[in-house]
């Protein structure tokens, strides 16, 4: 039971990161390698809010989400705006985001130093029993809040006007342009929202991933795994992949050791991608391959 809860917990959080990467690729053809730095920005934002404003959980969450969204906007301004429509957009956008990530990580070093910061337990330290296993408030709170946020993202994509634009972009960029959907506005929405999601996920993971300069690398890797395994552009695919990744991590950590986790996860990727080269539910085989 403990493994199941850990799986759901990790899946919910990795799903948030993966969906951001997935939407950015599907909608804009942009593999955002600065997403890890955005994640770290969210962590630092939450920590800063806790130290300078209040240590109330809502303030900490808000700090993470707002700074994450701002970091996403910085990516939009510094990568998307100057490069969109230019030759070699695919390659140059990736490299520019990588350059931005290198600058970001090392700026964190210079500003905050290499020391880890600590963030308070956001859902308290209570524990309860479920089917004979002890569940912490931290895990259950993360599962519930991440699921609610994911649901809100899906609803926004289905119901809102900007969500409609984003979906149109993911399905047919040329068609979306023909019917007057503004690519720049949609890009702003996608990058700001995926930044906010990364910031939110960062706060949820703050008891495992402490604020430190290099902390974004692993979440970026997990987010990429989830996004690619799920099939770029597919939210249901990302959710399924997040569960697969979370389950692999939980089972590996339980039966082997935490140091084997990446190894088994890449083993999983190798198997899934060799069987289904476009991931669990790839919907963009023709347009983005």
């Amino acid at each position, binding site marked *: 039971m403990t493994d199941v809860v850990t799986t759901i917990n990790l899946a919910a959080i990795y799903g948030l990161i993966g969906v951001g990467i997935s939407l950015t690729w599907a909608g804009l053809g942009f593999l955002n390698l600065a997403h890890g730095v955005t994640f770290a920005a969210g962590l630092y934002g939450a920590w800063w809010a806790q130290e300078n404003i209040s240590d109330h959980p809502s303030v900490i969450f808000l700090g993470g989400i707002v700074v994450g969204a701002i970091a996403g906007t910085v990516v939009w301004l510094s990568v998307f705006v100057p490069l969109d429509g230019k030759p070699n957009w695919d390659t140059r956008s990736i490299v520019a985001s990588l350059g931005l990530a290198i600058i970001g990580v090392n700026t964190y070093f210079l500003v905050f130093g290499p020391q880890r910061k600590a963030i308070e337990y956001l859902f308290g330290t209570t524990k309860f029993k479920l089917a004979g296993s002890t569940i912490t408030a931290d895990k259950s709170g993360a599962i519930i809040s991440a699921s609610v946020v994911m649901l809100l993202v899906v609803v926004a994509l289905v119901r809102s006007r900007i969500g409609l634009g984003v979906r149109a972009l993911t399905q047919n960029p040329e068609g979306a342009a023909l019917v007057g959907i503004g690519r720049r506005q949609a890009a702003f929405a996608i990058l700001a929202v995926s930044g906010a999601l990364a910031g939110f996920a960062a706060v949820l993971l703050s008891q495992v991933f402490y604020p430190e300069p290099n902390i974004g690398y692993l979440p970026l890797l997990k987010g990429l795994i989830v996004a690619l395994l799920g099939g770029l552009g597919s939210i249901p695919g990302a959710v399924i992949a997040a569960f697969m990744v979370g389950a692999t991590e939980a089972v590996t950590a339980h039966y082997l050791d935490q140091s084997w986790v990446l190894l088994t996860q890449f083993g999983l990727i190798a198997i899934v991608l*060799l069987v289904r080269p476009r991931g669990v539910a790839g919907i963009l085989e023709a347009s983005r391959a």
Partner: protein
Amino acid sequence: MREVLSFKKAGDASFYGGSLALALILFFVVYDNDVFGGQWVVFSLYASINLMWMLVIGTAGIYSFATVAVVGASAYLAALVSGGSIAGVDLEGARSLNVVLMLLAAAAFGAFLGVLIAAPTIRLRGVYFCLFTIGLAEVGRAIVKQHELLGKNSGLFGGARFLRVDQVATENGRTIQFFVGLALIVFCLVVYRLVDGGRLGLLLRTARESEGVAKGLGVDVVRARFAVFIISSTVLGLIGGFYTGSYGGVSLTIFDFNTLLLLLAMIVVGGLGSAKGAIIGTALVLYVDRTYADLDQPAWRFVAIGIIMYAVTIGTTRGLVGLPAQIRAYVQRRRARQVGGEGEPAPAPAELELPGL
């Protein structure tokens, strides 16, 4: 063969001739300087890796991130078979090969890894393959980190070296290191020109632009991709052997993601798809890296590299190597507009449209 190796443009001949002359002048001016000797070894290894990586990422248009991992794995094998061991532990076995056999073993292992990396290209494309190779590199690092025989975090040292102990940090030793490094770069340049300028390069570029069209023309895309991976990985394996031969061993840092980023920055800054770009990018980024390395805050060097990488990507379409053509075209367009907008505007420079992921 002669056609492939001949210089296509006068600019190429003057670039390579000038670079060789500059390297020789630098060497004879400062060959008594230990720092220069050390930097030269790093430059020769990085430039050689980048030339081979350029074949995969530039000519074939395949985003493989397992390049440094192949060098690292081969360097480990070279250290292992030539007598390297964890400090204080004497591992028994049929090892202690000499330098030449060590290099051959490393190259053969590189070729084997090339087959392993190439196999998924049959099924995987673009970012999927990119992630797969990042995974392979992580697997390599995890295996080394957990295996006692490979030294875990300490690395393997005491393998075969190009220099005897009494030659280290002497003028004689630096001279040997200089010419060994130069030979490696020249060898990699020849391999690059043979592949990129030959039939295989043509097939790979055709497949890069459109796999469907290439198949329609009868190109065996899978075979061409296997060929480029095996050739580049064999040479990368050899470079791994040179790594061990230069340092007497290898440690886990070779698998660092930062090392990969540094090499990628070199390729991108110089210009994707060009050997000149690989050389220029390596020299520039390494210069910045080493200039800032001595500061109190080493993070500044990565900030500087990140800024260069970002600025070059935003400001140029083909890296520094394509900048002169870009400026010429810009000036021509401006002149055409100033004339009064009459007549045909100057054409844009020939863009190297790199394949999308």
